[in-house]
């Protein structure tokens, strides 16, 4: 092999007394794709930022050596480091929404990098910007060059970020979770783009990701990080065929796969009658214009959706962001006013209920949100959070009984009863999600709407939460309406799948049928875009 492009030796980073990166060493070779994989909090982003010297001043960095080709990056003064950042090392951040300046056109933002690093005239830099936009395959570059970030879609913004990173013609491109904030279909496009650009320019790509499937398609070599340490470095093929370290094996085992639904035994319904029956459900948002705020049109967030769900079963609602799946979920719970349609739960028409009757009925449908931190009042104790529903719907239950019930609920979600006296911020994401599940269970619901409950969690935690949900379903016969964008998770948990596209359900059926033999072109596109572990 040739000489490494980037060589990191004995890098440690500490905040206060806490070591977040602990004595790691690795190399990135020219023209290769190196992937640093690990769960959130394992220190992978910190590693990248420390190489670029972008950490906050309270971080203490120490290393025996960081070399870019023959240059020692540790001894370079800050003023010279500016010539390396953006010029020799490019960087793509996770969130394209917050990485672009909202008051500058994208053309200006790309040109800025060119003018800093190369001595070129305005006209020349404009030409270069145009070329870059063509390179990242943005349609109509002559028009886009004058547009502002908010006028672009998420995928296009990430393309602009890539163009900015490429503007310095770097030898090394660091991509920190470049597609995590994007939908699957767009993720596939961006990854293809990165691959083709790498082939054109011959630069090295250092990919940081939590997604093993994605990495398996992209990387040449993989390093696995756990709690600040690199536990295993291997070639991609070697890693997926014969991983050595127990943590790598655990990661691979926790990975949900779309194939897992193959031959799934379809549960026989506990009651033959359907639990939930939704007919022609619509949620429209009026667009108001003019002086009198006349309604000129509607945004059809949910546009006439009908489906049935039997007791004890799971229906997965799949779709990309903005397709109206969350709106539908919240609309069913009456958290968002709906425009038309009927919702029958146990043959009771929910849309006709008001006042106290509605409040009582609410105990039958509960919801679990995506972000378990925003879903809990930071000023309430866990115990208070869980007993809130019991207090509201059964005010006659005494304090002691209520506390017993809370302890029992905590046991059900596999947490010790002592956590009732702590605040939500003291828990990790997975534990918080367990508390949210306990809160939903407190009022003995028949149906729980799960709104992307695992999207904010790491793979291994995700597997635990899914197992917990399955368990609870078996014990208590609860139905789930499982809203997600992740088809692998769907394969794990769902009995039936409904695919939503632009406010409508375009395909519906058993999980095996929809995922493995998709009929509708959109479903097909969706299924194809999912990265699958595939090593030659």
């Amino acid at each position, binding site marked *: 092999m040739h000489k490494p492009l980037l060589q990191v030796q004995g890098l440690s980073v500490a905040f206060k007394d806490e070591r977040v990166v602990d004595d790691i060493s690795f190399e990135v070779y020219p023209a290769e794709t190196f992937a640093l994989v690990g769960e959130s909090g394992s220190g992978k982003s910190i590693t990248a930022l420390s190489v670029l010297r972008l950490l906050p001043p309270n971080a203490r960095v120490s290393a025996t050596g960081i070399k870019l080709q023959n240059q020692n990056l540790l001894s370079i003064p800050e003023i010279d480091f500016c010539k390396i950042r953006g010029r020799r090392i490019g960087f793509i951040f996770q969130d394209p929404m917050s990485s672009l300046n909202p008051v500058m056109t994208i053309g200006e933002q790309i040109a800025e990098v060119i003018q800093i690093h190369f001595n070129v005239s305005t006209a020349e830099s404009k030409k270069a910007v145009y070329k870059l936009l063509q390179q990242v395959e943005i349609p109509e570059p002559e028009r886009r060059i004058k547009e502002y970030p908010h006028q672009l879609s998420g995928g296009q913004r990430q393309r602009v970020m890539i163009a900015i990173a490429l503007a310095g013609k770097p030898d090394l491109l660091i991509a920190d979770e470049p597609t995590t904030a994007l939908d699957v279909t767009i993720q596939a496009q961006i990854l293809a783009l990165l691959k083709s650009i790498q082939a054109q320019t011959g630069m090295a790509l250092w990919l940081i990701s939590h997604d093993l499937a994605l990495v398996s398609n992209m990387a040449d070599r993989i390093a696995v990080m756990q709690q600040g340490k690199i536990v295993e470095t291997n070639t991609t093929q070697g890693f997926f065929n014969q991983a050595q370290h127990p943590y790598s094996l655990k990661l691979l085992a926790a990975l949900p796969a779309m194939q897992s639904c193959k031959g799934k035994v379809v549960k026989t319904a506990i009651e033959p009658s359907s639990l939930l029956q939704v007919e022609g459900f619509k949620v429209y948002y009026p667009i108001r214009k003019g002086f009198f705020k006349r309604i000129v049109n509607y945004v059809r967030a949910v546009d006439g959706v009908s489906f049935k769900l039997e007791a004890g079963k799971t229906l997965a609602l799949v779709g990309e962001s903005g397709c109206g799946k969350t709106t539908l979920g*919240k609309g069913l*719970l009456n*958290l968002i006013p709906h425009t038309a349609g009927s919702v029958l739960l146990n043959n009771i028409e929910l849309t006709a209920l008001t006042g106290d009757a*509605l*409040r*009582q009925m*609410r*105990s039958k*449908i*509960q*919801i679990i*949100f995506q*972000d378990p931190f*925003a*879903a*809990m*009042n*930071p*000023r*309430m*104790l866990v115990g*208070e*959070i869980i007993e*809130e*529903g019991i*207090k*509201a*719907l059964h005010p006659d239950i005494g304090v002691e009984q209520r506390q017993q019930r809370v302890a029992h609920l905590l046991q059900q979600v596999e947490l010790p009863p002592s956590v009732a*006296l702590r*605040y939500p*911020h003291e828990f990790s994401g997975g534990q918080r999600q367990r508390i*949210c599940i306990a*809160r939903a269970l*407190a*009022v003995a619901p028949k149906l729980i709407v799960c709104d992307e409950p695992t999207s904010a969690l790491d793979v291994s935690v995700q597997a635990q939460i899914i197992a917990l949900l399955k368990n609870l379903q078996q014990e208590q016969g609860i139905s789930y309406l499982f809203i997600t964008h992740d088809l692998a998770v769907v394969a794990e948990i769902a009995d039936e799948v409904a695919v939503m596209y632009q406010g409508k359900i375009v395909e519906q059926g058993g999980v095996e049928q929809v995922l493995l033999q998709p009929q509708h072109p959109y479903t097909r596109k969706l299924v194809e875009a999912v990265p699958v572990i595939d090593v030659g």
Partner: protein
Amino acid sequence: MIVLWTDALIFLLVATLFIFSVLLRNKAHLQRPLQKIACSKTAMISLLVLVFFVLIGLLDSVHFKSNENSTHEIISVLDYWAKPLRNNTEKTYSAPFSAYLYSKETLALPDGSQQWGFPRLKFGGSHLQNPDAELLSDVLEKALSGFCKGVGLVILWVILLAWIFKGRDKNLFKNTTFKAVLAVFLLLFSISYMLVDLSSYYHVLGTDKVGEDVFYQAIKSIRTGLVIGSLTTMIMLPLAITFGIMAGFFRGWVDDIIQYIYTTLNSIPGVLLIAASILMVQVYMANHAEDFNSLIVRSDMRLLFLCLILGVTSWTGLCRMLRAETLKLREMEYVQAAQALGVKRMVILSRHILPNVMHIVLISVVLDFSALVLAEAVLSYINIGVDPTTYSWGNMINGARLEMARDPVVWWSLLASFVFMFSLVLAANLFADSVRNAFDPRRTEEAG
């Protein structure tokens, strides 16, 4: 015993706070934040200073008819104790610790001749034979003895307390917070003792234009400052919180009406409203002269109305902030989760929205408290503040303002009011800051 309106309200406030603290004392979830406040040096020291101010204010709020001379004037307990300070008035300005007046007069010498010079003060340093030679040493001696007496008293108390609580909590004296608080208490008490000691011989902060003791004025002003700060806030808070949260949470027509009210109120100059209401009170008092027969009752009524009108005009800013915050909070998922659990809207408001806007309320209350103490000064300047006979830092500054151009400058009124106002406002700010930190569960780890 005579109860003025503001007296009654102040004691009502203190009683409510007391009842609240007793009720909340044993709540499990409040133990940790309270413990944190108790462990924070800044919090406890500023609380001590605040308590010191409040105690003086409370002493000054117990009024009764005096029978020292036939006037049957209404005085407070503080006035009764500070009798020498109150009665020892000079002719005009005199500097702190001076034995002479600040302006020259024609003096009649013992030999019958006349001389143009600084006359001796009637009370300040009158025990000295030859002030030029003795003054400094006398002041130092008296200061030292007063200070030592204060220190001695505190040490005596500490020993007494230690004896009473013997064996209960041995670690108390090793606690750094307790030590710091004790040190500040020692300092505060000894200095006060020293000042009280000195003030029976000298005017420690000088005298003002009509010869009144400035130290006495500054102490009397504490009550006025506290009344304006606390009563106004008490009037403003319920308005701001109810309207702000309701507007943000219910949206729709409720929001429209509340916004209409506060934009309208905001667009009327506050000074105009204050002037009008003060005028109204004065007319009312003139028409019902038999109910307001004493000077202090009249000025008290005016103070109360000033608080009222300041409260009514100053709730809009906080209301607007709370509305915006509530608009944000009502979309939070925990509010939606509560809705999904069938929690009633009023309960959501009180359990989820209100505690999460309290930090804003606390910060703006403290800032408003300081601003109100200062606003009083401005209003007194255009003669629509407190009654000119009421002692207040505003009136003191206002009086001192006229003498700023004088050479040599008369600085002591200004300095006295500044130091008192500054320590009160600073203590309030620091204390509120610690309270906010302690009650924010997300910050439990960082702040110490």
